[in-house]
């Protein structure tokens, strides 16, 4: 890239546009926001095209020493690249989703969204520990405002809950970071990833980071902020919350907990498995009895994120790559599902499932896309949902068969609650006249769901595009974990009398 600071530009474009939006009227704010996010998407495409697969681990690096112990250092590996691509891909769709449904304080709203884009890219691109922390925690602020200002009736409670949960985690993580910097003497993330902390200290550091990432993930039982936040957030807020913000927890585990504290990660593996098993079963069952569409999808997110955590804590290539694929797929699919909810919410202003019904009749195009995303959510092979789920479960099988069995029940329960939802919304008779009168997708909405649909199929049919960039990084991580990785409960033992049997077989063969 010849020294062009593309990452900084990607941070700067939405930041500048966001500031400008604050002083603009509604119409031009929307146009500018759309333009800025599209520019970032184009830059993202350039970034991906120029990413050298099999090249240096960290690419597009930029570094400016601001003062001792804190530097403005950016750079990405394949893992970060893919998550940045997810963010810049979802952003224009979010702006599109807010095009008509947001009509008060539009300038501020667009400003908040653009600021969030900057912060999200920053999280994935930061190479300095404190720079990461700033992006990571500040990312909450715009989300918060989006829920608290443009949210539903109970928005205050939701945003407060969101804050309270994340606050506790961040305080502990900050303390752990301070300790790490003092011990290792550097804030450089790549260096820290190779630094061997004392296994005793790792335990505490791991727990401190866990407190933050588990909430962000969210893992059971610290997940209860998510349904409320989703229900109250405007559509685009839900899309970005499910699509990108939930991925920060997983990214945290893969960037910090696993490489920096491998021994502690293995030591706490069973804890993660247990929480994940609980999450899959409990939240899937809860999703089954929901009346509110957004709550249902929010609970399903918790179950899907549990597949991410078991993949990560399988400590092998399949598990790690699988969990990355689940994160990317879930970003697209849950974003798309929240979008689908938003589309009909804009028409009828209710999320109550029973108020709909028979939408296949008057909204056939909508029904088609909703079906596609439903199938991707239940992990039908050929869609993005399958690849990650399959690899994650294949990974954990090598370590713990019990965890695999319990978490794989998610494919049954997932099918049950998603198809039950689909049936109540799109099938059956048109029992409500107002729902039956709703118009099918218009051009703007098609422009949002078609790219998502294509991406879901692409990722399902040819996931190599996404697996290739991160292959080397995952391999490096697997190698780092190898020294601590546990022996699985499913290991093979060859027969003791094998020679005799072979002789016997040979004997038979001779006949």
């Amino acid at each position, binding site marked *: 890239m010849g020294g062009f600071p593309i990452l900084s530009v990607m941070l700067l474009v939405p930041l500048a546009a966001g500031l400008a939006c604050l002083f603009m009227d509604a119409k031009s704010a929307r146009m500018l926001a759309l333009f800025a996010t599209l520019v970032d998407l184009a830059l993202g495409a350039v970034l991906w095209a120029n990413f050298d697969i099999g090249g240096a681990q960290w690419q597009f690096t930029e570094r400016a020493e601001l*003062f001792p*112990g804190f530097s403005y250092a950016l750079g990405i590996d394949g893992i970060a690249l893919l998550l940045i691509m997810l963010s810049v891909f979802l952003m224009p769709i979010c702006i599109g989703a807010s095009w008509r449904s947001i009509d008060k304080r539009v300038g501020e709203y667009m400003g908040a969204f653009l600021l969030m884009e900057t912060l999200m890219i920053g999280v994935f691109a930061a190479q300095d520990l*404190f720079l990461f*922390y*700033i992006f990571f925690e*500040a990312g909450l*602020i715009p989300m*918060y405002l989006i829920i608290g*200002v443009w949210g539903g009736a109970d928005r*205050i409670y939701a*945003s*407060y*809950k969101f*804050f*309270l*949960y994340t606050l506790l985690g961040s305080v502990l993580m900050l303390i752990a970071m301070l300790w790490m910097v*003092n011990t290792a003497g550097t804030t450089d993330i790549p260096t820290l990833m190779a630094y061997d902390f004392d296994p005793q200290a790792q335990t505490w550091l791991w727990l401190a980071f866990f407190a933050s990432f588990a909430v962000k993930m969210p893992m059971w*039982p610290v997940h*209860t902020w998510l349904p409320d936040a989703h229900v109250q957030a405007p559509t685009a807020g839900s899309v970005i919350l499910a699509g990108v913000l939930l991925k920060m927890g997983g990214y945290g585990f893969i960037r910090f907990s696993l490489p920096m504290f491998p021994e502690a990660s293995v030591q706490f593996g069973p804890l993660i498995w247990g929480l994940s098993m609980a999450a899959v079963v*409990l939240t899937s*069952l*809860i999703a*089954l*009895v929901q009346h509110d569409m957004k709550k249902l999808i929010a609970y399903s997110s918790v179950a899907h994120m549990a597949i991410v955590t078991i993949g990560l804590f399988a400590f092998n290539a*399949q598990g790690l*790559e699988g969990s990355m694929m689940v994160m990317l797929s879930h970003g697209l699919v849950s974003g798309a599902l929240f979008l689908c909810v938003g589309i009909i919410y804009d028409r009828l202003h209710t999320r109550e499932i029973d108020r709909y019904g028979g939408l296949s009749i008057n909204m056939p195009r909508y029904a088609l896309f909703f079906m596609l995303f439903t*199938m991707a959510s239940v992990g039908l*092979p050929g869609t993005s949902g*399958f*690849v990650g789920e*399959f*690899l994650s*479960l294949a990974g954990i*099988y*090598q370590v713990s*068969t*019990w965890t*695999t*069995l319990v978490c*794989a*029940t998610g*494919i*049954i*329960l997932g*099918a049950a609650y998603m*198809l039950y939802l689909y049936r109540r919304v799109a*099938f059956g008779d048109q029992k409500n006249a107002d729902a039956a009168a709703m118009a099918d997708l218009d051009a703007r909405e098609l422009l949002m769901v078609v790219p998502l649909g294509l991406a879901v199929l692409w990722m399902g*049919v*040819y996931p*190599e595009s996404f*697996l290739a960039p991160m*292959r080397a990084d995952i*391999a490096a991580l697997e190698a780092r974990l190898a020294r601590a990785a546990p022996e*699985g*409960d*499913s*290991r*093979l*033992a060859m*027969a003791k009398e094998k020679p005799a049997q072979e002789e016997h077989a040979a004997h038979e063969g001779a006949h």
Partner: protein
Amino acid sequence: MSILLIVFLPLLAAIIAGLGNRQLGNLAARSVTTGALIIACALSWPIFIQFLNGSAEATVVPVLKWVQSGTMSFDWALRVDALTAVMLVVVTTVSALVHLYSWGYMDEDPDQPRFFAYLSLFTFAMLMLVTADNLVQMFFGWEGVGLASYLLIGFWFRKPSANAAAIKAFVVNRVGDLGFMLGIFGTFLVFGTVSIPEILAAAPGMAGSTIGFLGYRFDTMTVLCILLFIGAMGKSAQLGLHTWLPDAMEGPTPVSALIHAATMVTAGVFMVCRLSPMFETSETAMAFVAVIGAATCFFAATIGCTQWDIKRVIAYSTCSQLGYMFFAAGVGAYGAAMFHLFTHAFFKALLFLGAGSVIHAMHHEQDMRFYGNLRKHIPITFWTMTAGTLAITGVGIAGFVGFAGFYSKDAIIEAAFGAGTSVGQFAFWMGIFAALMTSFYSWRLVFLTFFGEARWAGSEHIQHAVHHEHEDPSEEAGHDNHVENPVGTAGYHPHESPWVMLLPLVVLSLGAVFAGFVFHHSFISEGTGEFWRGALVFHEHLIDAMHEVPTWVKWSPFTVMAIGFVIAWYGYIRNTSFPAAAAEQLGPIYTFVYRKWMFDELYHYLFVVPAFWFGRLFWKQGDVGLIDRFGPNGAAWVVARGSTYAQKVQSGYLYSYALVMLLGLVGAISWVIAG
């Protein structure tokens, strides 16, 4: 390569018909999908014939890279060998005929493009399944046909019962798929690959090894085979996971013929045959397959004897015939299993399409109690269905000639006996009993439908039709008298179906009559190894044993078939009060069987009700009552008590939160850096 066209033309047609939907119109959607299937079918037969005359070799056509993760890798590829060739002709032939048939059957449906798109999509998924070269692509096809099945069962999505049946089919299948998936994981763990040829080559070397599973150690191959077989049980509706199949009859009848009789439900049998070298390494797994198959074949046949809905009778019959195929595989007669799969596809599709023709003629009435005397009104349907019945009941003279089912079913029964094991004995006796019942319920269906007096007047559908078609009040008044008395025609005139529906019936009845005679040399005779060429395990000694079974074993299928025929004739033609009296006599046993051995009730109270109950419990008591109460809400309570300032904050000054956090952060960092 023609295989690429065979597999991808149906997909292309499905996309065109599905996305074109209303803009394209009915005729275009029908033509595109049916045309694609006819081409696929025309390309498939030459492949099959090449394998028959031994001039073809197994090939693999790579399509696209799929997944590579660590040491695990699998690609999209199309494998063609003898086993695939059999499935190719079955799938494309039945599918093409069903597409054609649907032109007539679905003619009045407003939503035809969607229907034809689903049918073609199903065919594509099924072809991907049978051409799979690795377990994961097989799983893709496996779940793909599940999706198509779900969509087609629920095709009439306004009907609550159709929706419920569709979800049930998908979810119950997923239970099986869970087993399949675990089986794939285990296979990868043991063999380090998911490529089918590599696994099959390495499988014998793993005999006797052990593997950990759920904290215990088991024989490796037994665990893997049983896990994979659980997938087969789901898809092929075997005992325990069969409950979705009868309900699947909610879908349009052509769907039942294609998916729930001829092709999709046989995927499990195909899988066991494809992986036969694996199953051969574990006696326990083989016995498991045989016992489940034999039990299903018996159990489903008992229910088939008691049902009134014409489609449900055929559905339970399918379930039972699949049981035959599985116990054939379980005793090692994979060739016989595949042969029965092949002949069954023709005669069972024929029976379903014939039933569709009857339903079409009887204005959507499906209850056989309201049929009767139809042979004179719909003669072609009657004769073709009779051919199907002769085939399924296995009419034929040992060592001489017979209908399709005679060759394949007798081969299975003889193989079970010839296997000489106790499991084989069990399967043999179950098979014989089931053959008796097969003959009984099949002829019962024919007699109730086509013979005896017309009992149409009792049917609401017929009444409805009559009242709509004949507006003349004087005529109507005459018929009202018949409502009380179910015997009579109610003035209704059933019409034979149009030629697009009759042509598939005639073609399939040719299959039902000749498929056994023409192909049995290739599938199940000495030297058949030539045909299979290692595509499945073929035991020459089992063929010998089949020929050497005692004469009474050879004649027993024929004997029970005749007995079943006579009982049906006595009960439904000679003395029609006999069945009710017999049911009365049997009392609770009859009720138990009639209510399908209570599986639906059992599962409802065992799984469905608790799932919702626990869902509400975990939500209201767990998330809200416990976590929120002592978590965030508790904290809020403490904070609110603690200071008035916090109260203010809590009531909504979000900006101050942000500010406080940022200030704290900046402060902390400056402190560190300064320190």
